[in-house]
């Protein structure tokens, strides 16, 4: 990023005990409290200290005028590939559970700033969909301006992993030179996953037996040599132990049912079905398994397995009890997820607060952080997006985005910075 612009737009870390208050705004809490008119959101130490129409602003607090503005919880994108350095996929093997997005985060990817300018405060950065079992994802908070990629990591978020079903792991739409990679059918995809889990179970047993032996032998010369650590099998074993959330890329209803069956057979849970464009056909089964669904609002027809995609998907799944989120899978679309949520109102008549939930609380639940973010409630982390109008309105523009109470995007500041660097463009 342009050095001048960059330095102008970096946020300073908050001083401990700093208090900020957004006053006089319409607050869309996305909680039981609903929408509050002329309300105040009080932020202390990066957390929401209080929210309501009658909240007293303590002396010395930094006040942000919210008059005429709409405050909503920071938007959470449950399917992102932003901030990944180099390849999004480790495509060479069909199982790559050992690779970690956390190893390759680029904290200076300008898309993070652009996301903030669309009200996004957290993203689930996923491995690509090349493999039946892909790499481990990283949940990031968009603390734009930190100098160490590790500081972006949403530390409280549980580990997760990407699975992929259907055309992508089949490599249906690509023709790489050389022999065709296994699997080339949905049948093969299923067997790859089954085999990986059975191997992981054997691996887990091997370690359990070793630990028993080691305990018996005690320390010293007779201590047995531990088995080889295999980072791939270890990760899959961690899925079985419930330590790693499965985010499974899928399109067709049959493959969704396939993975549910496989999960129940092998003893693991699917946390979210990603894309899940035919989820509406098997919504009850998804709900029964207890998985969430993270879908596109209206993408369809880009490949055969997306031909039955309908924009009513989110509404139907939601009506059957599935926790639904709307994601971007795109650095461009991530900047207007608030309008993606509005499409849930348009297609299927989802109530506005439920639609907002699809980009806030629901993805938070899907990532295992709903107790920390996803709604505006006292005690939660102060991840907030401040809009010029109701986020569903055609005049809606993000004016300010806060992460942990720190203003990480401020349109006024951005405009000021660009008038100092006019080559960057963007009309005033």
């Amino acid at each position, binding site marked *: 990023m342009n050095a001048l612009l960059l330095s102008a737009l970096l946020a300073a870390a908050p001083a401990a005990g700093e208090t900020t208050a957004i006053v006089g705004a319409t607050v869309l809490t996305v909680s039981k409290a609903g929408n509050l008119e002329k309300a105040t959101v009080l932020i202390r130490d990066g957390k929401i200290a209080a929210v309501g129409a009658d909240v007293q602003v303590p002396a010395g607090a930094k006040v942000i005028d919210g008059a005429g503005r709409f405050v909503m919880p920071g938007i959470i994108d449950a399917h992102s590939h932003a901030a990944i*350095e180099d390849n999004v996929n480790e495509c*060479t093997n069909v199982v790559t559970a050992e690779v970690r997005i956390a190893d390759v985060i680029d*904290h200076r990817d300008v898309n993070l700033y652009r996301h903030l300018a669309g009200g996004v405060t957290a993203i689930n950065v996923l491995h690509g969909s090349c493999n039946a079992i892909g790499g481990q994802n990283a949940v990031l908070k968009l603390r734009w301006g930190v100098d160490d990629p590790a500081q972006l990591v949403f530390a409280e978020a549980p580990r997760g992993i990407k699975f992929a079903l259907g055309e992508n792991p089949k490599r249906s739409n690509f023709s*790489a030179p050389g022999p065709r990679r296994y699997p080339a059918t949905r049948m093969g995809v299923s067997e790859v996953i089954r085999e990986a889990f059975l191997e992981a179970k054997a691996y887990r047993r091997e370690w359990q037996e070793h630990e028993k032996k080691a305990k018996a032998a005690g320390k010293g010369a007779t201590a047995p040599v531990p088995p080889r650590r295999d980072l791939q099998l270890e990760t899959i074993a961690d899925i079985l132990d419930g330590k790693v959330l499965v985010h499974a890329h899928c399109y067709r209803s049959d493959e969704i049912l396939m993975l549910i069956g496989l999960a129940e057979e092998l003893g693991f849970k699917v946390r979210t079905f990603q894309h899940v464009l035919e989820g509406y056909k098997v919504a009850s089964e998804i709900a029964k398994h207890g998985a969430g669904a993270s879908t596109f609002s209206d993408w369809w027809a880009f490949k055969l397995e997306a031909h039955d995609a309908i924009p009513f998907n989110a509404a139907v799944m939601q009506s059957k009890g599935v926790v639904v989120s709307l994601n971007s899978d795109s650095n461009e679309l991530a900047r207007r997820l608030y309008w993606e949520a509005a499409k849930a109102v348009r297609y299927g008549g989802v109530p506005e607060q439920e639609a907002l939930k699809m980009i806030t609380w629901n993805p938070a639940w899907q990532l295992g952080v709903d107790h920390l973010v996803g709604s505006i409630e006292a005690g939660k982390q102060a991840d907030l997006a401040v809009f010029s109008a109701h986020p569903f309105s055609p005049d809606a523009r993000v004016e300010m985005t806060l992460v942990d109470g720190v203003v990480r995007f401020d349109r006024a500041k951005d405009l000021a910075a660009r008038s100092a660097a006019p080559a960057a463009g963007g009309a005033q």
Partner: protein
Amino acid sequence: MRVVLLAGLLALAPATAADPVVALVGGRVLPVSGPALEKATVLLRGGVIAAVGADVAVPPGARVIDASGLTLTPGLIDAFSGIGLPARPAGGPGGAATNAPDPLAAEADVLDRVKLADALKARDAGITTALVVVPDGIAAGRSVLLNLAGETTEELVWRQPAALHLHLSTLRRQYPASLMGTVAWARQALLDARHQQALWDDYEREPRGKERPRFDASARAWQDVLSGRLPLIVTCSRLNDVRRALALGQEFGVKVVLAGVPQAWEVADVLKKAGRPLLVTTNYDPPRAAGFSFGGGPDEAKEKADIEAAERNPGKLHAAGLRFALVSAHGRDFAAGVRKAIERGLPQEAALRAVTLGAAEALGIADRTGSLEAGKAANLVAWSGEPFAKDTKAKLVFVDGERFEPEDKPAAPGGEGRPRVGEEVAR
């Protein structure tokens, strides 16, 4: 004091056929370890520097070379080079995903691939010492440290193997084909090395009743890194590769050396804290595949800015108080790269240090080379002018005391009548 005395004695002993002495007199001497000396003498006895100073007495029988008008510096050390390896169009480490013959064979020795004649050509540019690294692959072999005088490649060897290498790069259509795959691969390789070590230790302690463990050459090579017998040099082409390399080192208790690091100045504080040797690239624009984008092609403004930032990197690192080696990193013209660093803010003397004593320090050989000091290897260059200046040529190069005269290539046709510099004079 004792060193000086010893050096003095050495210097004064007469030269004989078995113990030849060369005296370079009257030149401007930049010893790097100390201040510049005008019209000084450098005395070489065999392959070792015997004395350096303004008033060094030339012993009888010495071959005296008039170095007036020349600038004498230690021989240049290219601490991360492709010297002697087949020329390749590749982009240098990290710049491109090109597969080496065996891109994951940590145990392969680069020495086996060095071509003597090609290696010796580097002397023409004043390079006397080089760490030779295979640029391709991920862990494509152990490098060798060469001193560029000898009749066979083996005769050049100063340290073999010199280091184990990990390029934070990717392979094409072969695991690892992503940066995250590369990190995961390295992590698993180190774990496997540890595991193999444990199996063998257990077996060697009590072989009775146990199956012979499998021998794994790659794991063996990595064990040298785990035990500290060999440094692990990690090639970093992205800003965050620095943290990646340091984190990997920390995870496995391995002390890493960082190579490449074209944006290192941005993490100067991290590097200061880590205190690890740095081999900083002068290959600012390694050839790479054209990028693409969905919106109007690659961001050329950024590409250009990144190249310029890499050119300013050495100067900024110096300004931040870091010590480092400047390396060719398989660039086409090392001197031009160093010159660019100087143009972009690296002081001349810091540049010279970075390719001599600084490089020797980074490689752990500063006790034997890198400066013009009595007792160090007789590696030196007599330059026609200011080192690295555009028209400056290496007129005389000494490696282990052996004299070489680089061809003056742009000389007049025939070249017979050209004036000889550094002509020996009788005294």
